[in-house]
């Protein structure tokens, strides 16, 4: 996020201009002539699903651009349209530069062939010249660390080795524009780390990358900008922090069955809203687990749309069964939080030595006004983030354990309104 922003004055690498993609899905599908005859050749009824609706954005050369959204929101469809695998029904897509698509690692890998043959085939499919592909076999196998298994058939590879090989091919392909779908969702921790390093290298080399993912951390870490899709429509585009915050909001709202676009409007109407909540180690690394007895740092990010006087910031930690394991609020100590301006972004932190017994827990933050005419809950995000406490043995929950509470003003964002 802090890497130098790509210059915007050059011709964009990818332009997507009001693209709409519809899928015609037959209600009943006849695969044989007999079925057709039995159904009397009546017209198949089609249902039209709109995969993408009027999507527009452009990606500058050298930009790392994230696309996020829930399952079925149209992310992969968008990627396939840009790649040219799907044809769009409306709108234009322009690509400027050599493009390579990674929808899956190891496309075309054949289990009956040795690593070497597969590397060549895969690289050709990904757009490398056959000559170039053969030249790079060594460096691919070297990167994957699989020299000893060079002649082994792929079916005898472990899944980890398979993924390593596939990833090694991917980063050898020298396209200007990379379309990457969810490929980081594989491999062990060490391999993921290697992937991240390579991603940073690709970004620093100035490749243009369109990156589809569910991993909000990766978006915040790599992307210059991001886009949030919901039911095929763009509902947010811009700063990755902002977009991932909205993604979280959309996700939690959906569990309550409300419409996402409605929610985005609603959030803008709110005085303040929780955009993110997570757990950290004491060294500031985001985690989804903590060992019993370890120090725990809970963080909640709140955006203010209107100025608010002395809002109460509350954090409840719920156990899986819904029991309150821990709760704290800025209001409990009679503490005045002060005035927050419109557009201000606030991070509140609660840290304590973990007294929680092993199991699953959820963070449920809340912003409320206790005084004045508008008193009431401003925003409440039940189960905004989950985490697991690992370890053996019983540590009885002890409400009111020693803890620290702090509020930090982290910045002011621009309000669109």
């Amino acid at each position, binding site marked *: 996020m802090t890497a130098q922003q790509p210059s915007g004055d050059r011709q964009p*690498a990818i332009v997507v201009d009001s693209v709409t993609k519809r*899928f015609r899905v037959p209600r009943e599908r006849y*695969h*044989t*002539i*007999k079925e057709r005859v039995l159904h009397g050749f009546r017209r198949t009824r089609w249902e039209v699903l709109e995969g993408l609706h009027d999507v527009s954005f452009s990606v500058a*050369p050298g930009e790392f651009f994230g696309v996020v959204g829930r399952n079925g929101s149209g992310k992969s469809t968008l990627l*396939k349209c840009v*790649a*040219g*695998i*799907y*044809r769009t029904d409306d709108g234009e897509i*322009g*690509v*400027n*530069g*050599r*493009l390579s*698509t990674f*929808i*899956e690692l190891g*496309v*075309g890998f*054949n289990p*009956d*062939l040795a690593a070497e*043959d597969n590397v*060549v*085939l895969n690289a*050709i*499919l*990904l*757009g490398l*010249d*056959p000559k170039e592909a053969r030249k790079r076999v060594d460096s691919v196998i070297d990167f994957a660390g699989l020299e000893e298994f060079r002649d082994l058939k792929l079916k005898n590879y472990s899944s980890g080795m398979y993924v390593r090989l596939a990833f090694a091919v991917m980063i050898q392909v020298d396209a*200007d524009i990379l379309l990457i779908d969810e490929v980081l969702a594989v491999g062990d921790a060490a391999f993921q780390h290697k992937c991240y390093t390579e991603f940073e290298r690709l970004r620093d080399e100035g490749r243009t990358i369109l990156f589809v993912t569910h991993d909000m951390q990766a978006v915040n870490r790599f992307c210059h900008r991001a886009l949030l899709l919901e039911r095929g429509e763009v509902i947010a585009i811009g700063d990755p922090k902002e977009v991932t915050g909205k993604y979280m909001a959309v996700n939690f709202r959906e569990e309550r069955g409300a419409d996402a676009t409605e929610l985005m409007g609603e959030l803008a109407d709110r005085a303040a809203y929780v955009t993110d909540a997570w757990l950290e180690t004491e060294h500031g690394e985001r985690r989804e687990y903590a060992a019993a007895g370890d120090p725990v740092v809970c963080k909640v990010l709140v955006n203010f749309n209107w100025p608010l006087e002395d809002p109460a910031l509350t954090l409840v930690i719920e156990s899986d069964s819904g029991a309150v394991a821990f709760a704290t609020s800025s209001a409990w100590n009679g503490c005045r939080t002060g005035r927050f301006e419109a557009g201000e972004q606030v991070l509140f932190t609660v840290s304590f030595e973990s007294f929680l017994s092993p199991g699953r827990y959820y963070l449920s933050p809340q912003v409320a006004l206790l005084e004045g005419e508008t008193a009431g809950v401003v925003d409440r995000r039940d189960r905004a983030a989950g985490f697991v406490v690992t370890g053996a043995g019983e540590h009885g929950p002890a409400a009111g354990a020693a803890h620290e509470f702090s509020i930090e003003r982290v910045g002011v964002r621009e309000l669109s309104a």
Partner: protein
Amino acid sequence: MTAGAAVERQPLGAAGRRRFFQILVALSVTEFKTRYFGSVLGYVWSLMRPLMVFGVLYVVFTHVVRFGGNIEHYPLKLLLAIVLWSFFAEATGAALTSLVQREGLLRKVPFPPAVVPLSVGLTAAFNLGLNLCVVLVFVLITGIAPQAAWLELIPLVVCLLALTAAVSMLLAVLYVPFRDMAPIWEVVTQMLFWGTPIIYVIVTVPASVREILMMNPLAVIIEQARHAIVDSSAPSAADSIGGAPLLLIPFGIVVALLAASVALYRRAEGTLAERL
């Protein structure tokens, strides 16, 4: 960054065409390797198969049915026809399901779908080339001297390749919405086998039926190949069909099939990936 390089998604640009052939070759080489490198005798099997079919048919039709006995060079004619026919039958049979089988690839990598059935055909064409060499060896052993007419084999094989490519492409794309193409094509293949002069020669067919059978491009190719390579005393394809101008009909069929398949792929290309 290739400055100013226009969108490279136009499938028929020069770069697109090169990529078409690169993928075509890569896929067929892979298929060739997987098919033959796994078995003990490897490539020998692909030579053995038509030879074994030939052996069986030869024994049946010369010793059991006593049919080929009075046809000159019957074994060679039979062998040549079987090699040409099995190329056609194997390639089209394998191409039929190829698009559906390669679904994963088509949905994940942007490339022209026509590559898939064509790569199957190309793999079979490697075999055809080697099998034809074996046939020529047998021809030489029999004592037939090499002659200029053998060169006719080249345009004949080109015609066979064109026919096979067209039929393969059509079958593969039709199989996507109509899965019953599989049993249908199985029956059609059987009919073609008996309707084409493979185990018999065209002169043994009554004259009235002969010209109809010769409308089949496969019959023309096989009969002309026999005339050119094995037995120049046998009537040429032009003689059998009743005059050279009539050869335009089977030739036209090949051209029409090719045109149809190209047109169909042009139309289906954009939407094929989502219909698989």
